[in-house]
């Protein structure tokens, strides 16, 4: 296996981008990453595109070819292989992992990993239905299980077992909005209060509207190359120290413990083993906070806090920039928004910006090691990556 580095990264603005189509955002991200990497179009060997549900959101499948076609003539002129990767909300993380494996194995040298989702071309109930397809349609969906509903059941169980409170859940959203204020790509750049979260409308009790990540359009891309040639393109390559992926039962009800995402536990454990690091070494982590409870479970399941302590840690400020471990300095899915297929790549972009020291007012000081954590469904898939600015 060859060491791998990221030499370019680009995230579009996330939000309700009514003037932009799926292909518009994907192309902007792809071209942005290529320019940031300073590579020529003819050097690119392959691309992987994370996209959860083009079919349901915009009636478009065959996303790999579509994006390659419209991004810098990669299909029409160079005919490079382009592969769409799908694992619900972890589609982006898996696309990145495919790109890393393609380069690490020696199969390709210069590979783009992109992610894109266009979610606002259908109405809210349509979005709810498309996202519910990430769960078990035959046995969860048919009983009226929505995505917030599944995470709400995780939250209720976590509260029952560990005494986690609604205020602790809310503190996750408050912190992520505080970070998002300083992120130019974030959908929401406003501060919120715990009281506002607790007074927002009920979505799936105990989760309220401001416990949930929003519906978002957006795309992101990175360029991956062998570490040995990275300095040819940039003075600040970001090295991939670990790439891992784990699976769990598709249904939440089948899990060993409702409040633990074993896919996160295993992907995290394997990533730390691969990088020869421990949670103490990590300077910041971008976790998959599709709901506030998801961030609390993530920081526990990845080993940053012991099981049951995540709510307290969040409320006490341990996860703020400057706290014990900065969690979601980008603003996370809550403030940046969650264009599902793009999120895993956007997390990697944030790692790149932070490790290059380019994150402005949300910069984690002296960051050397970053982790990203991308979850599909209610936890049936998890991708974890560790990055560093040192080889």
């Amino acid at each position, binding site marked *: 296996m060859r060491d791998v580095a990221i030499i370019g990264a680009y995230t579009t603005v996330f939000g309700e981008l009514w003037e932009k189509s799926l292909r518009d955002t994907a192309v902007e991200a792809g071209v942005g990453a290529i320019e940031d990497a300073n590579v020529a179009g003819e050097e690119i060997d392959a691309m992987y595109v994370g996209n959860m549900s083009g079919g349901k959101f915009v009636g478009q499948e065959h996303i790999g070819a579509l994006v390659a076609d419209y991004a810098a003539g990669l299909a029409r002129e160079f005919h490079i292989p382009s592969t769409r990767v799908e694992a619900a909300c972890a589609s982006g993380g898996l696309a990145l992992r495919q790109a890393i494996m393609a380069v690490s194995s020696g199969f390709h040298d210069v590979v783009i990993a992109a992610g894109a989702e266009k979610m606002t071309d259908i109405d809210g109930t349509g979005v709810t239905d498309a996202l519910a397809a990430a769960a078990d349609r035959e046995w969860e969906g048919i009983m009226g299980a929505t995505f917030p509903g599944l995470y709400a*059941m995780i939250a209720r169980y976590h509260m029952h077992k560990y005494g986690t409170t609604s205020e602790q859940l809310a503190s996750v959203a408050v912190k992520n909005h505080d970070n998002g204020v300083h992120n130019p790509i974030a959908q929401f750049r406003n501060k919120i209060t715990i009281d506002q979260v607790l007074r927002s409308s009920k979505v799936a009790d105990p989760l309220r509207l401001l416990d949930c990540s929003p519906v978002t359009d957006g795309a992101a891309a990175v360029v991956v190359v062998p570490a040995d040639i990275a300095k040819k393109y940039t003075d600040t390559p970001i090295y991939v120290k670990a790439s891992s992926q784990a699976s769990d039962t598709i249904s939440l009800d089948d899990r060993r413990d409702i409040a633990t995402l074993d896919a996160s536990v295993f992907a995290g454990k394997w990533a730390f083993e691969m990088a020869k690091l421990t949670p103490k070494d990590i300077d910041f982590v971008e976790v998959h906070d599709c709901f506030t409870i998801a961030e609390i479970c993530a920081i526990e399941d990845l080993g940053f806090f012991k099981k049951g302590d995540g709510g307290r840690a969040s409320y006490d400020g341990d996860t703020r920039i400057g706290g014990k471990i900065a969690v979601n300095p980008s603003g996370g899915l809550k403030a940046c928004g969650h264009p599902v297929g793009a999120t895993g790549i956007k997390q990697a972009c944030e790692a790149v910006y932070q490790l290059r020291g380019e994150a402005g007012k949300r910069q984690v000081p002296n960051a050397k090691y970053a982790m990203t954590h991308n979850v599909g469904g209610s936890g049936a898939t998890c991708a974890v990556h560790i990055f560093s600015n040192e080889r």
Partner: protein
Amino acid sequence: MPVPRFWREQKGRYNLIGTYCKKCGKHFYPARSICPFCRRSGEIEDFQFKGKGEIVTYSVIHASSEDFDHLTPYILAIVKLDEGPCITTQIVDEPTDIKIGDRVKAVFRRLGSDGKAGIIYYGTKFVIDN
């Protein structure tokens, strides 16, 4: 939903029939044709669950997909059946009246329908049985 897609799962949905592995003694709902613990050496056969269990966790759903909009707010729950497996279901009761640990029993209920002239889906929900 096309009629065959619902029809082929009727046994499990109407009558709470799952499977059981004779080798390891574990029960599965919904039915699994391969035991995830014994894999190819398992011996799977149908199993009729009694339909009694307790609430592991639940949520009161206020925002749903279109198919369930007329039911909101409704109680979505994970119920642990006495034989072992957990099932995602609805609890037919007042949202204020339930708590984790409540005993429940299965009832046959309408799940939904395909518009006014389409097929009507039935299946198993639960009621409080303390």
